């Protein structure tokens, strides 16, 4: 696929925008064209947060993802809202700790990752987002330790450099998770 359209969605505070930024930075460090577009406004403050990320081999047209190839749903309202929008043949990643129902669509591939539970069990605090990102990269066959580290370095400011390892750990955990 020369262009992948991601949609990340969840509660404000789940690190949705950060997860999207990581994917965008990873694309950038891998030499791709990228765009990242957040939802903004009051919904950032505790409501539903979402962001569109496009990673492409060619110039990105519209940065708005209305029909994602990849949906990362970190809570039930997000799955409810965006399930139908996913491109046929697309992939849905759902945080199954917070989403109890199953995906209804039959023309998409679904991965259930209990990211929130894995985070708390493994002392990874609020890094459910990065656990699920690890799984996303694994499924997309895009999980390389080097490029992950390079992207993490870009997305985590020098001030918080101590967060690098724990983020990488969360992603590996997600990548290795088997349902």
């Amino acid at each position, binding site marked *: 696929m020369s262009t992948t359209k991601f949609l990340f969605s969840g509660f404000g505070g789940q690190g949705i925008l950060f997860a999207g*930024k990581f994917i965008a930075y990873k694309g950038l460090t891998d030499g791709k064209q990228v*765009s990242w577009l957040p939802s903004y406004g009051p919904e950032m403050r505790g409501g539903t947060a979402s962001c569109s990320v496009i990673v492409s081999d060619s110039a990105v*047209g519209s*940065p708005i993802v209305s029909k994602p190839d990849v949906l990362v749903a970190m809570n039930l309202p997000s799955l409810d809202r965006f399930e139908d929008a996913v491109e046929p043949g697309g992939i849905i990643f759902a945080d199954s700790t917070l989403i109890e129902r199953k995906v209804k669509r039959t023309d998409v591939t679904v991965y259930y990752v209990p990211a929130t539970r894995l985070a708390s069990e493994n002392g990874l605090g609020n890094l459910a987002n990065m656990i699920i990102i690890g799984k996303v990269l694994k499924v997309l066959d895009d999980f390389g330790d080097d490029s992950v580290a390079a992207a993490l370095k870009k997305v985590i400011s020098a001030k918080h450099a101590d967060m690098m390892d724990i983020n990488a750990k969360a992603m590996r955990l997600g990548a290795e998770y088997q349902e």
Partner: protein
Amino acid sequence: MADKVLMKGNEAIAEAAIIAGCRHYFGYPITPQTEIAAYMAKKMPKIGGVFLQAESEIAAINMVYGVASAGKRVMTSSSSPGVSLKGEGLSYLAGADLPSLIVNVQRGGPGLGGIQPSQSDYFQATRGGGHGDYHMIVLAPASVQEMAELTIKGFELADTYRMTSMILADGTMGQMMEPVALDLKVNPAPEKPWATTGTKLQREHNIINSLSLIPEELEKFNFDRYERYKIVEEKETMYEEYMMEDADICVTAFGIAARVSKNAVDEARKRGIKAGMIRPITLWPFPVAPFAKAADKVKEFISVELSMGQMIEDVKLATSCKRPVTLCNRAGGMIPDPEQVLRAIEAAAKNGGVR
């Protein structure tokens, strides 16, 4: 080429302004452009610049007027309702022939409206924004890279023509992140012998003023100003043509609408429809020439806008209404999706320009 960094459009504007030598920023918080103020608040003190949060948009634009009078590169930014408040200042800046840069990261209106992206301040921007006969140079970026580049261009044009340049962006452009290369070239500000920097007792006093009570005199100022505008129209018009060589259907859009439309044009081509696009980069001066040329070749124009149809009037003027011009729009903070534009292209292709 320098490394590309991921930046929000708003941040790219702020950083580019600093690169352009702007050391004075005055603003007032309003969504969706507040990142510009936040960026300036962080950066300016570190580089000997001035960031000041004004008590209102009105005060901010008048602080801009003050710094511009003193001959320095200066800017303010806001979003639609705030730009309305700046309207008075924009008129005075024009009347006093002061260079400055104003950013409008548009949101849906009228009134308090909403905070989602819009292009419904097109009339306000291209027709001046305040009272009296005047124009601003209106630049419409369609990528984060252009947010940076056109900011620098805006300062340069403002200085060259002693005009206000406006970056007319929208919430999407302001909020989205894309890779940006910031190794940008800048023409330094020219000498400004007219500036009020103190006479040093070496010259006659300079006066920055927009008042002239003698109508003959004021008329001459207006005529002279429009002579200058004519040069801007001749020399500074910018646009991008996309697949226009053999196009039957010409989509036209700026900013985010152009990004969406490009997808639709690509899809239409895949379906065998010869669609193309003209993307105005300067909204004033409006790129009349490519439209006039296209009007002799294409069957139909489609103006894609995040408004109730504003640029469409300029398209009709530029094409002398030779071919039908239809509107494909969303409003109030909604954005047309590529499918909507594609449907408009298909309808135009089917109708063959007969309306």
